[in-house]
């Protein structure tokens, strides 16, 4: 029992084992590879920031460039002039992401845990129930019809949260985390000690799979934060609850549509194109969208890396 008690386990991990680790050469090589790739990942974002500060004129002349001809904060002043619409959609994005993530993670864990339990009688059934929907779906229109007319998901926050509450993919990921981190013996021991199922889950299992929960929460939060298609489908009249991502995607889609149909719309399209928000404004919005979630990232990462630091002692 003692060896698998979490607190006891921690003590052992924290103990100063001096095990062999990679030499400085290998460490340096790792750093170089990871640093180069990280650079490759961050440069496009810096690029986006540069475009957002480029003047319209510069974009017209030299296109998207790391070295614009002239700079401008026009996009940001314009963004702030969006005023209420911007802050409201910002607020909506936060609300949807936070509420959605909490609910979704709860449902995911609750669903994944019984699936992880080999002694659960309906394990096969629930496993299949979830797995099957990963491959087959009714399609967009039937789902839309059911959500709107049967479940009343239209012009409300629920419409932007409920359709994404559950993902079979995340359930499988969660189940795999449980499999790798939680020894079956622990559960058996807890059951023998008279611990109820919910008690076991909350007090014994959850603390062990924190990294897994943090990872799934991150994935869920990201998908809520980036979501815009639900808004397109389910928001009709109540635009006050529109998230920021949809504000941006609408601009993008407007431009795409006008491009595709310009020969049909003729002068109408030309007039509309003239009114479209500039590219730098779109990039400014991208910056607005990326920054909060990038800031939230370390929060999730803490758990993943918290595990890592314990691990690093071992290495």
């Amino acid at each position, binding site marked *: 029992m003692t060896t698998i008690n979490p607190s006891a386990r921690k003590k052992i991990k924290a103990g100063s084992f001096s095990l062999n680790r990679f030499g400085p050469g290998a460490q340096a090589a790792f750093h170089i590879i990871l640093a180069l790739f990280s650079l490759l*990942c961050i440069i496009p974002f810096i690029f986006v920031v540069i475009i957002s500060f480029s003047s319209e004129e510069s974009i017209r002349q030299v296109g998207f460039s790391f070295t614009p001809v002239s700079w401008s904060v026009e996009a940001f002043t314009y963004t702030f002039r969006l005023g209420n619409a911007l802050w409201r959609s910002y607020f909506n994005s936060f609300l949807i992401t936070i509420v959605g993530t909490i609910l979704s993670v709860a449902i995911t864990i609750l669903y994944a845990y019984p699936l992880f339990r080999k002694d659960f009688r309906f394990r096969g059934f629930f496993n299949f129930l979830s797995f099957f929907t990963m491959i087959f779906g009714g399609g967009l229109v039937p789902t839309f019809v059911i959500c709107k007319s049967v479940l009343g998901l239209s012009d409300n926050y629920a419409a932007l949260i409920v359709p994404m509450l559950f993902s079979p993919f995340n359930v499988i990921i969660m189940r795999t985390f449980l499999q790798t981190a939680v020894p079956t013996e622990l559960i058996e021991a807890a059951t023998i000690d008279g611990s109820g199922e919910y008690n076991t889950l909350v007090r014994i299992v959850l603390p062990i799979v924190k990294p897994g929960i943090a990872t799934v929460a991150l994935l869920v939060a990201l998908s809520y934060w980036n979501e815009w298609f639900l808004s397109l489908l389910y928001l009709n009249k109540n635009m006050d609850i529109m998230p920021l991502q949809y504000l941006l995607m609408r601009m993008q889609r407007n431009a795409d549509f006008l491009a595709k149909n310009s020969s049909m719309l003729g002068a109408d399209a030309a007039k509309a194109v003239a009114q479209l928000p500039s590219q730098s404004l779109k990039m400014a919005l991208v910056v607005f969208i990326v920054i909060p979630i990038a800031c939230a990232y370390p929060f999730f990462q803490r758990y993943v890396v918290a595990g890592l630091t314990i691990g690093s002692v071992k290495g």
Partner: protein
Amino acid sequence: MTTIQTAVPKPHRRYSSIAAKKKTFWLTTMALPGAVWLLLIRYLPMFGIVIAFKNYRAFRPNTFWNNIIQSEWVGLKNFEFLKSPDTGIMIRNTLGYNILWIILGLVISVAFAIMMSELTSRFLAKTYQTLMFFPYFLSWVVASYFVLAFLDPTSGMIPFFQKAAGLKATNFYHDTTWWPLILTICNLWKNLGYSSVLYLAAITGIDTTQYEAAAVDGATKWQQIWHVTLPGIRPMIVILLIMNVGKIFNADFGLFYNVPQNSGSLYPVTQVVDTYVYRAYANTHNMGMSSAAGFLQSFVGMICIIGANALVRKIDAESSLF
């Protein structure tokens, strides 16, 4: 640890049946919210699959349900879009890129995860991880601007340097040569951060005592990785692999549509099932055809998953999906 199990006396049979029922009950209540969601949002609309085999149109009274019932069965007619001479290219591209990327993605992201777990500098490990996630925030549309900044025939950086060096500038958007490479880089760039975080979290979950035992036995670091880390994250590798295989007939639309700027000349290397169906649908607005394409992708995915899962079961039943 296994000794603990045998040391516990077997409970009384009667008691165990009540306990078992109780356990089943409580575990079922856990799965219930998810199950209800699945039934409402996923299973209820599944009747829509029949649209793939019907000529869907509106009848009177015009309700969705009535329309589906009254629409005429057309058998496999909606699948005829597959008879195109382009089909070969489109299937080759879809499967080819997917297989290549599944393998590359797996190897590189596992390598990245292991490297990050072995770094002594906590701060840098965190920084790399954060930065690697950035591409995931940027949509393909935004990424396509970035690619354009390099490749644009007039103002792009590469043609610019080519001209400066006195070479003929490559017109990238009409030249298929480089696109398999460009698309591969873009795909890895976007997805590596995501998948390596999954593996990293899985590595974190490995019981440290196993490393200690290995170290006591005199295993080198490389041996520890081979004998402890990789087996430890095997379930995660297998699961992600199986799931990727299930999507082998689907393609990331934005990557193949936006990143090449929808340039026709590049279709021989960028046309995939999703873009083909999109372009066909934009012209015909045939709901049956797009349903049929979706059904086909699901069907191929299912066969691949079942196949992969059976294979995994043979080798390692523990890790299999079902």
